[in-house]
């Protein structure tokens, strides 16, 4: 192997070089911006985490698994996984091997960006060596892998279902430029290397190309043309990259350590959030996941598009899309880079200009009925519209001989979550304060909550001294395990719905199921637990109309009926009310279901 030219340069490398330079500069500036935007504390946190060996290792592992192998995608759908990793990893290997070759044969040129990339152009083969042929084979092999990936990618455009996707993202213009140039790169590389295979050598991919129409290919003019095209494709891709979804390639490298450092989103489009925004590959997995996708006209408001608008800083659309969202958190659950869309939306809402001059000075006038119960039961606003909830809870408490008091009999103070969801955290503080006063003053040791919405806010926002907040699913399951509450198993089949705030919100999946299993059989929903589908009633959404919600609910009900239950069970009065509008089978509250097992 030796160089073909004394000056190891040819003008065709320029497009690539320019693109490369552009991307590098762009990324460096971007990096600096993000870092600077971080609050001091976060910056320190990040810096520190980098030097903790465990963390450092985790970062490297994640980068390898997420950026190159796309493990999450493999789990989701092998074909999808292979498609992505073949391109990412294959390309990565081509680059690495290219460099290795350069190091071995022309260490002098290793400094030049372009040399490893266009290696085959600049080199000339003299004699076969085992080492040489290893590289030939390896390089062609990886080229083949990448090409297979590209082929799949093209196929995905026509038949997405094949990859387990119902809908994919509508690409922006720059996305398309990026996409097509990316598709072009490898076939062109193949052809280009094919041209020079006669001189520089090659293997099972490139030699055959060279074989056909030999003398056309050995013509130097044509050779450079081929390499020009290859370089131009690369250049185009590089220039498109920062403005397209392919920005996720470099961005993810920054995001991973940030995530591992445990940073929090403090602004919808600064620092940590910005890193996430750029890392979104707009794969569109969140579109299918979004309950709103039940009706076409709402597709355009799903997370992937929100991210795009945040990137463009289109305030009007940002707010509109955010206000519509049910805040069920499912998109985050399925997200490959687990983009914290919930937090980003909350930050957007907190900035939204609703001039609500909310005043809660009247709250002090609220004096709840005092009681001595060890357990303080907070039914919540919604429960007064589903009397069966409170009634069943009381039944069970009495059956277990628990000493209890209801805090909000005849109307109490709202827990504050609906307000927080409307981005009015500051105002919610008043309610939280007043409720805290009442709860701590009650002398109870347990705050029992029968509403998932309330439960989440009690968990996340309240600091209750000496009072344990428990959702009634946890609590009653506890009583059952301790044997304080005994239930008879009937022969009904219950399909349990995980309320968003309880499941994805607070990670409570098993307690309700264990408890229900004592009164009957479980009929799992099609998608459940972390994948459960919002009932559509969520107070999270501010602008969804009743009609839009109807579509969502109906879809969600279908999901619940998957394995033919006799009852749909939910542990949130809002879900209960929403479902019972459209469900063909009886919808019951968790406590109501448990009451089925009580001795009559």
């Amino acid at each position, binding site marked *: 192997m030796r160089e073909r030219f004394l000056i190891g340069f040819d003008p065709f490398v320029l497009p690539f070089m320019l693109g490369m330079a552009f991307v590098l500069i762009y990324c460096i500036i971007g990096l600096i911006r993000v870092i600077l935007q971080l609050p001091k504390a976060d910056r320190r946190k990040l810096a520190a985490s980098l030097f903790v060996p465990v963390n450092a290792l985790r970062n490297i592992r994640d980068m390898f698994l997420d950026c190159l192998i796309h493990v999450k995608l493999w789990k989701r759908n092998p074909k999808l996984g292979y498609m992505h990793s073949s391109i990412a990893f294959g390309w990565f290997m081509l680059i690495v091997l290219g460099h290795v070759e350069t190091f071995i044969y022309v260490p002098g040129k290793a400094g030049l960006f372009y040399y490893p990339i266009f290696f085959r152009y600049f080199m000339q083969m003299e004699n076969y060596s085992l080492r040489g042929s290893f590289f030939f084979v390896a390089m062609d092999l990886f080229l083949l892998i990448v090409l297979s990936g590209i082929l799949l990618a093209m196929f995905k455009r026509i038949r997405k279902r094949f990859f387990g996707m119902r809908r994919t993202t509508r690409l922006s213009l720059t996305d398309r430029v990026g996409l097509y140039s990316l598709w072009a790169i490898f076939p062109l590389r193949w052809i280009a290397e094919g041209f020079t295979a006669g001189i520089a050598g090659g293997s099972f991919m490139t030699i055959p190309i060279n074989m056909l129409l030999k003398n056309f290919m050995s013509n130097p003019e044509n050779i450079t043309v081929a390499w020009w095209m290859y370089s131009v494709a690369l250049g185009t891709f590089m220039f498109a990259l920062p403005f397209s979804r392919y920005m996720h390639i470099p961005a993810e490298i920054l995001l991973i350590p940030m995530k591992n450092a445990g940073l929090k989103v403090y602004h919808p489009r600064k620092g940590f959030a910005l890193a996430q925004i750029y890392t979104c590959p707009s794969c569109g997995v969140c579109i299918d996941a979004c309950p709103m996708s039940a009706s076409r006209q709402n597709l355009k408001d799903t997370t992937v598009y929100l991210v795009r608008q945040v990137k463009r800083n289109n305030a009007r659309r940002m707010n509109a899309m955010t206000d519509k969202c049910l805040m069920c958190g499912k998109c985050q659950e399925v997200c490959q880079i687990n983009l914290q869309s919930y937090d980003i939306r909350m930050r957007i809402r907190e900035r939204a200009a609703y001039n609500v001059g909310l005043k809660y000075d009247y709250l002090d006038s609220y004096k709840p009925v005092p009681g001595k119960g060890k357990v303080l039961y907070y039914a919540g606003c919604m429960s*007064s519209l589903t*009397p069966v909830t409170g009634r069943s809870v009381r039944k069970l408490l009495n059956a277990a001989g628990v000493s209890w008091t209801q805090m909000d009999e*005849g109307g109490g103070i709202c827990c504050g979550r609906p307000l927080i969801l409307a981005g009015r955290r500051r105002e919610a503080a008043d309610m939280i304060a007043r409720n805290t006063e009442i709860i701590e003053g009650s002398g109870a040791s347990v705050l029992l909550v029968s509403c998932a919405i309330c439960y989440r806010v009690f968990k996340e926002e309240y600091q209750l001294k000496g009072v344990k907040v428990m959702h009634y699913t946890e609590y009653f399951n506890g009583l059952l395990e301790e044997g304080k509450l005994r239930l008879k198993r009937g022969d009904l089949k219950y399909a349990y719905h995980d309320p968003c705030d309880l499941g994805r919100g607070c990670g409570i999946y098993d307690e309700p199921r264990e408890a229900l299993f004592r009164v009957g059989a479980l009929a799992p929903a099609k998608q459940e637990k972390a994948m459960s589908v919002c009932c559509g009633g969520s107070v999270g959404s501010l602008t969804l109309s009743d009609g839009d919600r109807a579509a969502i609910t109906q879809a969600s009900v279908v999901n619940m009926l998957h394995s033919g239950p006799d009852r749909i069970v939910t542990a949130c009065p809002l879900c209960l009310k929403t479902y019972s509008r459209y469900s063909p089978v009886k919808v019951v509250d968790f406590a109501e279901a448990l009451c089925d097992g009580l001795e009559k």
Partner: protein
Amino acid sequence: MAKDNVVVIGGGPCGIEVSRNLRDMGYTPILLEQQSELGGHLRQWDRLFPEGVDARKVLKELTSDLRGVKWFTDATIDSIKKSRKGYTVNVDSGMTFESKAVILTTGFKLFPAEKKEEYGYNIYERVITNADLEEYFRTRKDSRIQDPKTIGFVHCVGSRDEKACNRQCSKVCCATAVKQASEIKELFPEATVYCFYMDLRMFGRSYEDMYLNAQKKYGVRFIRGRVSEVSEDIDGKLFVKAEDTLLGKPMKMKMDLLVLMTGIIPGESTAQYSEMLGIERGEDGFFAPKDTILEPCRTKDAGLFIAGTCTGPKTLPETLSEARATAIQVHNFLSK
């Protein structure tokens, strides 16, 4: 000469009246009722507005003379097949009827009150429905009615309510409520009776008199406001929340008895027949006639007729006259 068969599905007042009229025109009506008795909802009713005529008497009148009408109870339709000749109706008991024309008089269903959870039907001791009350008027037996002192009537339960998936007005509940309010006042003169309404739709002849009577004679108190939620007190009394919208004040009152005026929704069989025979249905779930004004009893299918409350809420007299009109339509069709 014996004229041809006509199959009538649904043995409520409408079905009975169609059959009687067809019989009088010399046809052989075959009246199929899935329940064990003829009469439909009329069987559960005690007295009828506006004059308070005895429902049993009316039913007796209707069913008194069914000579020439072949009627079958406990007859559930298995399938109806359309052929060039007409229709073949198969009944689960194995009977099969051939007929050139089929009339659906499948009627309605009362909105299941428990679906409005906030009113706590079947949860609170003292919440009943209009049907329950009629039952009580007939039998004077209902553990939930113990000499009530305050009684509330909630209008529009499951009607005019998107949340109940029924935007329509059920037409008859207002009149029923006023009738029942007066009747219960007769039984418990000491009681205070309230009607919670959104709009009082006293559209029929002398309904307004009934309303006036309820006010003047029985002192029923009408409150313009929809009951939003009901809760139960320790003593089993009901806490009813509503806004007196004319006064603009929210009110919370204790009640001994709450009567839910459940509305009229399409019967279960409506969906199944529209499947079976391809009859279109409106957004409200009732059968959609060929032309709501000119052809209210006809479907796109010339031999297939629809009459009575299966095409939307109607009062009894309206139902009966539609039945007679349909009989004539059928005659015109058959004698073509």
